[in-house]
């Protein structure tokens, strides 16, 4: 037996985890189906119940911003916890623990969730804009907000999923832990989206974007610092 073996490089291992997640998702379509079906059902409901004509022009930016992020938020809550919960339920977590460096597991699964939520966002936003007659006046700000908000939702959801994956009441615990963690960026994203829709105060929109950058940075850094203990205990 030789000296301790060097751990695999984090980035190549993370790419391997990402590829496996996406391949498994492509073959089973469990998370994709639940995310897209939920998003589509809520979009249709909102379009019928509220629609573009039942809102006054002054209420439209605020209500549309809230509804858009509600759809994205609950889509994240619906599908993103699966990444770690399924590993524990299927009994594959032990093999992964023995084989992969913990940061690579987190990074790979985070990237997979970002890709998944990114795909849902790309599906939801154009439909929402059309169905609700949602006018975006500052498109670059809106796109930046979507990227930052989606990343924040995916990052916080992924880490919370890791936290609850070994608990018995995973679903309840995930919601209890994730909602307080996700509310701050959600509020910021809603307010900033309203600004992007009205173009009233661009500087206020940029302030919210900075807030989202800070939130994403803090949550992701904390996740990487804490994950080793969460994953191995």
């Amino acid at each position, binding site marked *: 037996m030789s000296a301790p073996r060097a751990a695999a490089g984090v980035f190549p*291992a993370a790419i391997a985890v990402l590829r496996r997640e996406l391949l498994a998702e492509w073959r089973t379509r469990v998370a994709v189906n639940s995310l897209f079906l939920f998003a589509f059902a809520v979009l249709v409901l909102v379009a019928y119940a509220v629609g573009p004509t039942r809102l006054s022009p002054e209420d439209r930016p605020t209500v549309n911003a809230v509804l858009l992020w509600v759809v994205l938020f609950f889509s994240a809550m619906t599908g993103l916890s699966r990444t770690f919960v399924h590993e524990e339920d299927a009994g594959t977590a032990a093999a992964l*623990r023995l084989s*992969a460096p913990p940061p690579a597991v987190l990074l790979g699964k985070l990237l997979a969730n970002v890709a998944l939520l990114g795909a849902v966002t790309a599906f939801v936003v154009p439909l929402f804009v059309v169905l609700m007659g949602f006018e975006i006046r500052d498109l670059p700000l809106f796109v930046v907000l979507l990227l930052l908000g989606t990343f924040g939702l995916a990052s916080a959801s992924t880490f919370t999923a890791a936290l609850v994956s070994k608990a018995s009441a995973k679903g309840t615990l995930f919601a209890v832990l994730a909602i307080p963690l996700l509310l701050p960026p959600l509020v910021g994203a809603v307010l900033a989206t309203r600004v992007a829709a009205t173009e009233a105060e661009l500087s206020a929109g940029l302030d919210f974007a900075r807030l989202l950058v800070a939130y994403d940075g803090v949550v992701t850094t904390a996740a990487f610092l804490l994950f080793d203990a969460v994953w191995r205990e």
Partner: protein
Amino acid sequence: MRLVAENLSRSFGRRAFGPVSFRVEAGRVLGVAGENGSGKTTLLKVLAGLLRPSGGSTKIFLEGEGSAGGHDPRDVMASIGWCAPDLSLYGELTAEENLIFFEKVRGRVGGPALAKALLAEVGLPESSYSKKALGALSTGQRQRVKLAFATLHEPDLLLLDEPGANLDEAGRAIVQKVVASQRLRGITVIASNDPRDLALSDERVTLS
């Protein structure tokens, strides 16, 4: 290389096993016997670093490191191979895709050739698994894939929990071959109730 356990125990509210002490040198095979519920599987999980012990310690001394220090299993997980009934690989991937994935996350670069060779060594010709997801293979075939997974990275410490479970006679011969190969590389620990598995060991501890 040496594996040393001193007063090792684990409890989940009540005692799962131990305290137990043993010492195994490179090239040797330790058998862990005991009735159902005596804690054999839990002991192997502690040795693998998948569980923390409640008491005592496990130290793995690597070659050339002398008797000072020693490593906690959690610090040398890359050197440990584990095959157990409650180990699952990814059911939606094929056997070959599973091994290639675990090669990659371990930083090894054997690729499909290594995976195919390992599967052939455990008696799985390509025709038996190439088009099937792992979840569609028989229990015995999955056990063979688990043996390939455990030895994929040529571990220094190989932990086999009920290695002959669900295997036919040809499969049991493969377990013997795996243990014989591991003797040249490091230490093997076999936990089982089956006398045929335990017959492969040089020394034995019995949990009660």
